């Protein structure tokens, strides 16, 4: 074995021997690298205790490229499969990887239930606003009017905001990052990893083959200052090259404003820990088109009982109440009679 393969602080340690098969230039490469680099920095992780579970789609190839345990499963079902694994094995770090079609369309039901249960799984939602693997149909996050192979006259479906959806499902951790900023991705992934419970991380990911430049107006280097809203816990939400703009709550809805018009005090002070999910929902609504300023970072990180731990507690409580299971006694637990 090479030295890299033995040194967990080297990216190669976390890289499998499988050839990566995404299209050249795909945003997925950057996300994979960010995850592998994160693992070189974490000191509470082991290869054998880490599992990546994915559904179907371009993003879902991800587990093959990590040197950990992994399962490339069924379209939409990764959150359900990962839930079973995390409940059975609370000792593991379980990640779920999928795209917008996988997670929000065919797998929407599993996603919301995993989030509401607060199972200890970290869900990476690669949002490229298109179906890539099936060669270019509109997705549940595509904008209205999008012309694709299946919508030659433009999509008439209203899109989801994954952030708002997660807030509505009661997610305890919600964040957004993008594939062009490795450091930002690593920071957000680290926060998800540290969170006790279900985490949803939306990643703006460029599909350069079927939806190239979908996020250019927001995430390209020269656009970032005016278009990316950095969420910083405990600080008023401000953005713009001169930090001249901000976000305020107006009649229950988040709205981008010029600070000059409303004054600093009117701005929303970002609070990751607020238990009220409606603020997260509103912030999620800020990014419903490709040309509006869009919040990034951790929207929400709330403490709540984790599901597998609660399952484990019930097992212990049952053991305390009834004593350890005894098969002989179980078979005799109903009315019995003896024939001699």
């Amino acid at each position, binding site marked *: *074995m090479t030295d890299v393969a033995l040194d967990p602080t080297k990216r190669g340690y976390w890289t*499998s021997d*499988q050839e990566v098969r995404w299209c050249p230039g795909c945003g997925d490469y950057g996300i994979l690298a960010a995850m592998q680099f994160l693992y070189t920095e974490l000191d509470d992780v*082991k*290869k*054998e*205790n880490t*599992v990546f*579970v994915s559904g*179907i789609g371009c993003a879902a190839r991800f*587990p*093959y490229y*990590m*040197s*950990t*345990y*992994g*399962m*490339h*499963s*069924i379209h939409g*079902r990764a959150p*359900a*499969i*990962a*839930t*079973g*694994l*995390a*409940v*059975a*094995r609370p*000792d*593991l770090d379980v990640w779920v990887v999928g795209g917008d079609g996988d997670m929000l369309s065919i797998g929407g*039901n*599993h996603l919301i*239930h995993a989030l509401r249960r607060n199972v200890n799984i970290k869900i990476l939602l690669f949002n490229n606003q298109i179906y890539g693997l099936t060669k270019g149909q509109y997705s549940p996050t595509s904008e209205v009017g999008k012309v694709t192979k299946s919508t030659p006259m433009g999509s008439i479906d209203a899109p989801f905001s994954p952030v708002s959806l997660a807030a509505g499902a009661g997610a305890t951790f919600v964040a957004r990052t993008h594939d062009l900023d490795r450091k930002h991705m690593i920071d957000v992934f680290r926060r998800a990893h540290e969170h006790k419970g279900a985490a949803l991380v939306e990643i703006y990911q460029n599909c350069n083959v079927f939806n190239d430049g979908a996020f250019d107006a927001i995430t390209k280097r020269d656009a970032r200052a005016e278009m990316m809203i950095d969420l910083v816990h405990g600080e008023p939400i401000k953005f713009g090259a001169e930090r001249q703009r901000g976000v305020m709550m107006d009649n229950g809805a988040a709205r981008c404003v010029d600070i000059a018009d409303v004054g600093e005090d009117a701005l929303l002070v970002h609070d990751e820990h607020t238990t009220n999910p409606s603020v997260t929902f509103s912030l999620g609504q800020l990014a419903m088109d490709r040309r509006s300023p869009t919040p990034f970072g951790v929207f929400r990180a709330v403490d709540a009982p984790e599901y597998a731990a609660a*399952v484990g507690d*019930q*097992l212990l*409580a*049952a*053991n305390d*109440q*009834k*004593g*350890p*299971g005894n*098969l*002989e006694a*179980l*078979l*005799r637990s*109903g*009315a*019995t*009679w*003896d*024939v*001699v």
Partner: protein
Amino acid sequence: MTDTADRVENSVQTLEGVIIRFAGDSGDGMQLTGDRFTSASAIAGNDLVTLPEFPAEIRAPQGTLAGVSAFQIHISDHNIHTPGDEPDVLVAMNPAALKSELNRLKSGGTIILNTDAFDMRNLEKCGYQMDPREDGSLDGYIVHEVPMTKLTVDATADLDVKKRDAERSKNFFALGLVSWMYDRPLQPTFDWIEEKFGKNPAVVASNNAAFKAGHAFGETAEMFGDQYQVASAPQKPGTYTNITGNVATAWGMVAAGQLSKLPVFLGSYPITPASDILHELSNHKNFGVRTFQAEDEIAGAGSALGAAFGGHLAYTTTSGPGVSLKGETISLAAMIELPLVIIDIQRGGPSTGLPTKTEASDLFLALYGRHGESPMPVVAAYSPSNCFHMAIEASRLALKYRTPVILLTDGYLANGAEPWLLPDVSTLPDISVDFATTFNDTDANGEPVFYPYKRDPETMARPWAIPGTPGLEHRVGGLEKADITGNVNYDPANHGLMTELRQAKLDGIAKDIPGAMVNSDGDADVLLIGWGSTHGSITAAVEQLRKEGTPATHVHLTHLSPLHPDLGELVQGYQHVIVPELNKGQLVKIIRSEFLIDAKPLSKVMGLPFTAREIIAAVNQATSGASSNGAAQNGAN
């Protein structure tokens, strides 16, 4: 009769057996009444078989035919196999129950009516133009008219219960009365009432009073001349309990966990008639059993597969429609070759069909209902208590061969009860398996490696390396796997090879399963082949046929895929081969195609088990040379 003028001197008659049918409105507590009578009879040592039948609606409109709930029990002083073809006694708590159940009663049978329910409104609700007690339609039956509601209210008059609440105890009055008629022990019912309702003393008092009053009424009222006794059946010595199929299945899952030394995980979604397994299992968390009520059927299977990847003994329980939804996950389990037990409590279909009625029409679904070439073991239980053993057997095959396994039971087994001679736990099989912990090969450079698809030469099972095992990190998935390495592979020859290997693994299991069950008394021209819950009906039919001078052999299958290794020999040499099935003829097609014999179907799809008589009639028809339409006589086709 002398100084005890108010007491009738009853004589006691002995019966070999009796079939009683309790029927009433869904709200009348008939399932509970039947259940209590069952327990008392089991404790009295009778052999017994039950057939609970209830509507799919939770509360159908009160007093209507749709709302009738019935419970049939057959008790006997000898070994019996069916809930009985025709009841001897019908207890009808209202006109609807009488109307819907009367045609089942044997001619000259006994009817016990709750006359308080026979008012104009109730008669009209179920479409009686005239009171059947007065229009001659009950002529030829022995009818006992008992004002059960009133007598129950009278009996509870001294208690502090409202009249409405008191009336609800009338099923215990009926139970008391029938318990007197058949000389059932009373204490088990008092004990049960105390245990069940102990938190609510008023209900305990009211139920006890009604139960005693019913019993006393039988003893004192002149209408019931004789009391009957059904002696205990000769049974093998040992400890018995009364068990339903669903409880036996759940206990089998707990047992399999103990026998494999693995934690049990159940991922399930509520569905009739399987939900009771989820309920029962969720009471046994002290065995380390995790039960997960998923958001849907697909997640039930998916979560179980995730748990299996993590090294748990994983189950998903459901009924037909749920199996359809789980199909994609079951195929993934076949591709990634992990143990997963899918338990299908079959019910009438297609679609929602008859959710509370029995049928065995998912055999083809279990065998073939998946995309691609996706072979896997399919096994079936043949009696309520056998569900325990088949749950263990399904788990054994899944674990040893790293494969999904489908266990079929059905609504009749699930809810039906029988006395069960408890097995000696120490005789149950060891089904433990070893996880992979070390490298299993060397690569081209001589470095040790782990190949997740390098198979055991004997079982062809691949190694089960669970997360947490250092050095054996690997990725599985639904894309075709390369032989040995398990890497994604699209090579045509490899796909052909892997398809063959998956089939060969299944075929090899035939070496590791018992022969079919055979009930033969030598020279017979007639062979009956059954699987699943038809076992009791076929056994009863064969016994009767022999008495009538028609020897018949009964071969019963518990393993449907692969088939029992001796089946090919067992089915040869008969003039008539009949395959009774609660479907349109599924096993029969397999028998015909596998063994090229002229097996004939006998099908019934009416939501009910076969009566022995239906099978006897089909045999007689075949042996007398008359042409058979392949359907049970009572109109099933």
